[in-house]
Structures are given as C-alpha cells and as structure tokens.
C-alpha cells in the first residue's frame, strides 16, 4: 500500500507535465506566427499546417519540403522566447546548394527567405542552442506567394 501515494504523485506529475509540454510547443508556434505576420501583411499566404517538436540544444534538425519554381517562400522558426537561445537556419536545394536569399531573426525566432529556381524538394536545416543538453521546443511555419 505504500506504493499508492507514490503512484498518485507520479500520475499527478504526468498529468501536469503533458499539458505543460504541449504549452511550450504552442508557445513556439505562437512565436513563429507572430514573427511571420510581417510577411502575411505583404501578401504572403500562411500555411495552417506546420512542423513542430523538440530539439536537443546544439544539434541540428532537417526538414524537407516541396517547393515550386518561381514561388517566394519564407520559413519561420519559433521557440519559447523566455530563454536566451541562439537560433540558426539555412535553406538548400535538392542538390545541396545553399539557396538562402535572406535571413531575419529576433528573440525566440529566426527566418529564412528563398525563391526556388527549380521545382523539387528543398531542405531547411536549423539548430537551436541553449543550455547543455536542453530539450528545446520548436515550431516551423511557412508563408508563400
């Protein structure tokens, strides 16, 4: 029976932790969205679907995405803006050539702009650096026109 209080404590901890984890990812999404507003005001269309997850501090994530020749695309990476984090982002074409046209960054976000010269997959690489081995929530949205 001594296990019961421990079990209850564990369940309570889990119950609190799950919404909290979701909340930080949502914070990351909100940050990315807020940053992306400036392109939406310029006539870009914001995709409703987005990538999200967590990344270990200092390690790199790779997102692959289909783009079309002649399009104008911005990818906005957001994270929880409470901590002091370093965000790095780049764009490459299917052959590994860097196609980053322009980059922007602010507190808790970084963005990369590209105008693909060819239709096909592009790759967005990003890295977020905070405390050692910290698991950092992130979200990546994109706008196009």
């Amino acid at each position: 029976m001594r296990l019961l209080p421990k079990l209850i404590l564990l369940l309570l901890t889990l119950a609190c932790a799950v919404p909290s984890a979701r909340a930080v990812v949502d914070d990351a999404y909100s940050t990315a969205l807020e940053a992306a507003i400036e392109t939406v005001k310029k006539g870009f269309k914001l995709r409703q679907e987005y990538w999200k997850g967590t990344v270990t501090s200092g390690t790199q994530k790779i997102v692959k995405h289909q783009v079309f020749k002649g399009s104008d695309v911005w990818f906005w990476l957001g994270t929880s803006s409470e901590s002091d984090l370093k965000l790095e982002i780049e764009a490459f074409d299917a052959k590994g050539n860097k196609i980053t046209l322009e980059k922007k960054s602010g507190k808790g976000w970084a963005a990369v702009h590209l105008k693909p010269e060819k239709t096909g997959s592009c790759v967005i690489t990003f890295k977020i650096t905070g405390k050692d081995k910290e698991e950092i929530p992130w979200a990546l949205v994109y706008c196009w026109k």
Partner: protein
Amino acid sequence: MRLSFVFASAAFACAALFSALPSRAADDKEKVVPDKGAGELDLTQFPGQVVEEVIVPVPSEVFSALDRLGNPDWKAQVKHGDRPAFTDRTDVALLLGATVADGFIAVQAEDKKTVENVGRDVLALATALGVREDVLKHCQAIDDAANGAKWDTVRTELDATQATVKAKMDSLRDGALAECVSVGGWLRGTEVITSVIGKAFSKDRAELLYQPDLADYFNDALEEMLTKSKNPAKLKSIADGLARLREIMQSGDENLTLDSVNEMHRISTELMKSITTKG
C-alpha cells in the same frame, strides 16, 4: 526510410555543417556538399536528425506558380459532381481531400456556386468522419467568404479545414487516415495541373509537376495502410498509380515531355475516378 532520402539528408546535414552561419545572399551561392562523385555522400558526417513529418503543399501553391507562366482557363477545370455515400473511413478521407482540392480549383476559377457546394460536401464528409464540430466554423467561413468573393479567405479556410481534420485524426491516433486526406487532395490537384499543362505545354510548366518525393511519401503511406484496410484492393491500385507517377516524374531528369504529362493525366484521372465513385 528510403536510402535515397538518407543520402539526401546526409547531403544537407553536411552542407549545413560546412556552411558559414552568417547570412549570405543568394548570388553568393556555394556548393557546400562534399560530393564524392556520382552523388555519393559521406554518411559518417551526418550530424542532423530528419523531421519525418511531411507537409503537403496546398493545390494553390502550384496553381499560383502556373498562373505566373500564363493564364490557364481554370473555369474549364471546375468539376464537382455528387459525392457517393461511403461508409469506409479510408474512402471518406480520400474523398474529403479531393473535395477540398475541388474547392481550391473553384477559388482559382472564382466560381461561387461550386465553392458553396464544396463547403456543404466537406461538412457532410467531416460528419461521416466524426469531426463535424471541428470543421463547422471553417465551412461557415467558406460560405460567407465565397458570398463576398473574398477568395483569399476561402483559400485560408480550405487550408484550415484540411489542417483541422488532419490534426483531429492525429489526435485520435489515426494519422494514416490523415494521410489519405492529403493523397486525395494531391491526386485531384495533379489531375487538374496535368490537364492545364497538357493543353498548353511548355518545359517550364511541366517542371512544376516534378514532385517525386511527395509521390514516394504517399506511396509509402498507403503501402503501410494496406494490411489494416477494409478495401486493400483500392488502396493498392492507388499506391501502384502513385509509384507509376513517381517513375514518370523521374524518367526525364526533371524534364517532363508532353507525352509524360499526358500519361500522368491519364493515371491521375483514373485514380480520381476510383476515389470519387463507388465500385
């Protein structure tokens, strides 16, 4: 994960590793992948983690690219017949994706009546999937925006409808069904785009069909679903069709011929028939 993607991932990971982090303008492009020849890449230098989730472009993205290369007759592409009453959730999800794509085509053609019909059908299909309450607000917004000819709003709400359904499916641990929504939409988009390009062919236009990674991704998703499906024959024929589309896309080294485009149109039309009819 396919080996080709592992190679590609390695390429980009290496590229990122070797690239300077400060921003560089596009005219300062550099070849950053340590290409060992014949596309062989050094997998030992792969430090990144690939995000498996794929976000499928909405039809409007490629429609806009087509618009820049001419002035397609979108009105001729509007086709939205009666929706059959499917009971299998896989069939409903495929049809929902195709119906949302019809909405994007109707927006392109600025066809209010079809957009309204699409909104109504989306709601019926969402009801069949048990997500009526989740998409109701989007369908109402589609209707209102179509009445006011606010086409950008209609596009946004169609995208939101699809995103909402997929998110709900994912939350119900039914991610495979969510992929069916994407497959239905992508195939309907491909049917229309190949029709437009086939009628006024140019190399630049045909290049917009070069989407082998998406065809590959859908093919893998459907193959995975075959064992659980109530109607594996239908899914198998769609998966085979997707594999054939991918072969055609890659047959010309990014340069699709008119014959290839017409063949893609024939395949996607046949697949759409199986998605939008009972039988």
